[in-house]
């Protein structure tokens, strides 16, 4: 190579005016630009962060006893005029009980905090398992193809049509009491199909990209190609699928629990829904009972949706509405 004539190929002029010269931006400019370009992602993350902080800090600070039946007491004047400590259900929000108490004299604020934590934990487990199975199958199907791919495709297409809640309800009819963790695992196991579809479709488009083929000529093996060439580019898709899976799992679990078929012994937002539906919070007008969990669930899901939408914009630039 040394003796070849390269004079004609030498770069000839300084490139200070080339299009290729990019100004270096300060970190803040980069960050603020990123936020401006993806408001949805940023705002959604803030909402979720707030919920997580509320649940984690709440469960650390607040005594778990406050979520137990009959915790709340108040001083009441009895018939003989003496002041007596009595169990205090159905209290309106006050300085002591910020969100009031429910039918069973539990502190609703504490219950919402612990319940949020339980639901969050369940969603995470379900999301991780669902995304794990889904991504693995998506990669196997998309990258290696063949009969295994055909099986994966057909199976996920068939399973995705089976209504998840119906399936979950049916399964729960045959099982004993579920724990929050078990429910998370169960939901994860029955809801990987969406992720598989997305990942597989993306792997299919990526694997025939020239750069994946170039990496073969660079001596990279299949595993290395998957790990170092495909996964980094699939990250926004996988992250979006994960967030979607967590949101789906939370909705499913709340649905199941609201029917009284979910975990009964640990606080969760779904179980709370079961209680306030079953014990007529609505007809009683106890807005402080059913209000907080509904608001938390709404913020939860809105936040997760916004993150998914924001990640979609990263993955699919056409969805970016502003430049």
């Amino acid at each position, binding site marked *: 190579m040394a003796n070849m004539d390269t004079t004609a190929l030498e770069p000839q002029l300084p490139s200070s005016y080339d299009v290729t010269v990019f100004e270096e931006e300060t970190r803040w400019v980069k960050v603020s630009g990123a936020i401006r370009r993806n408001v949805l992602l940023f705002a959604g993350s803030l909402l979720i962060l707030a919920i997580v902080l509320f649940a984690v800090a709440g469960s650390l600070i607040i005594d778990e006893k406050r979520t137990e039946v009959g915790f709340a007491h108040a001083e009441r004047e009895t018939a003989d005029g003496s002041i007596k400590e009595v169990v205090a259900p159905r209290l309106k929000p006050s300085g002591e009980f910020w969100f009031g108490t429910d039918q069973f004299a539990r502190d609703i604020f504490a219950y919402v905090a612990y319940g949020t934590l339980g639901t969050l934990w369940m969603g995470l487990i379900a999301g991780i398992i669902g995304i794990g199975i889904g991504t693995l199958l998506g990669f196997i199907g998309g990258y290696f193809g063949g009969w295994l791919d055909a099986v994966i495709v057909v199976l996920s297409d*068939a399973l995705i049509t089976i209504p998840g809640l119906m399936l979950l309800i049916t399964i729960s*009819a045959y099982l004993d009491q579920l724990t929050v963790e078990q429910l998370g695992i169960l939901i994860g196991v029955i809801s990987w199909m969406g992720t598989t579809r997305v990942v597989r479709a993306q792997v299919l488009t990526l694997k025939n990209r020239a750069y994946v083929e170039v990496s073969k000529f660079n001596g990279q093996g299949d595993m290395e190609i998957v790990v170092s060439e495909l996964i980094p580019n699939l990250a926004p898709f996988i992250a979006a699928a994960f967030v979607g899976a967590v949101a789906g799992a939370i909705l499913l679990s709340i649905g199941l629990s609201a029917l009284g078929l979910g975990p009964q012994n640990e606080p969760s937002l779904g179980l709370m829904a079961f209680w306030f539906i079953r014990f007529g919070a609505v007809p009683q*007008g106890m807005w402080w009972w059913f209000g907080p969990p509904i608001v938390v669930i709404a913020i939860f899901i809105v936040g997760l*949706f916004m993150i998914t939408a924001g990640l979609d914009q990263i993955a699919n630039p056409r969805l970016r509405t502003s430049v």
Partner: protein
Amino acid sequence: MTVDYVLRRLGMFVLIIFVAGTLNFAIPRLRPTNPVEERMNQLLQQAGGVHIANVKEMIASYEERFGLNNPLWRQYLNYWIALAKLDFGQSIAYFPADVTREVMRSMPWTLGLVGVTTVMAAVIGSFFGAWLGWTRTPIAVSFVVPLLLIVTAVPFYLLGLLMLWVFTVFWPVLPGGGAHDPLIAPAFDLTTIIDIVQHAILPGAAIILSSVGFWGLGMRGMMVTTMGDDFIKLAEFKGLKERRIFLRYAVRNALLPQVTGLAINIGFVVSGSVLVEVLFAYPGIGNLLYTAITSNDYFLIQGVLMYVIFAVGLMLFIVDLIYPLIDPRIRYRSA
């Protein structure tokens, strides 16, 4: 529409039934002991509310259907033979009522409520989404997007709960439960119809409100993607009127994936409607399933699940058959 296409779709339909049926067969066997058998023995011991002869008959029919002493493959085969005859056994709770008959009694209510509201939500949502995705729509309307997000984010049943509070407690103008007034003799007249519609408003509105955002956001995404397509640019170069570009070029193409979405979503809505039906005591499939579960009526549970999946699979199949009529690329594909 090619033979290949129809065959593939039909194959998918059969497969869905097969997978669902297999699941339905496998789920009760998840536990080492058979919960159905347990439950029956339990009944036999208590024999309180149920007639002891009935329970014995139930056990006989159960053994006949599944023959738990047979090898697994034999049980599986028997199971499919029974399914092929639409024989789901008899309901324990409503013994000796046939499961199929119970399902058929509830199905029309669910189909009416969920079917109508799903289509309405899809139409309204797609319209909103198209409007939002149309780049020429004033920025002022973009506040609708977060609004849709929030409405979508609250689950069906919780939204239903809120509405129940508003319209039956705060401002009692609508009936709070049931599908019709039990005092009105069911007849095909105006009073009955108005009564049925009145009862359907709250649960229906809950379903529509909470899924309209899903459709809207999906449609908006498709619109944005479609607006970037070359044929929209040529339509502009052609000097077409905005209205025509919007309807005939953008919306017409953006709608195509929404139709497929409709098919898949029907399954989800049916599923979600369980809660709405329970909440509003609506005598549909969801309520039936709930009753079945609370009374450990295993044959009924199996039957409901099978019928629901059959219905969802059938709807998917029908949408697949209709799809080529609206997308010429599939209609004429030769290979």
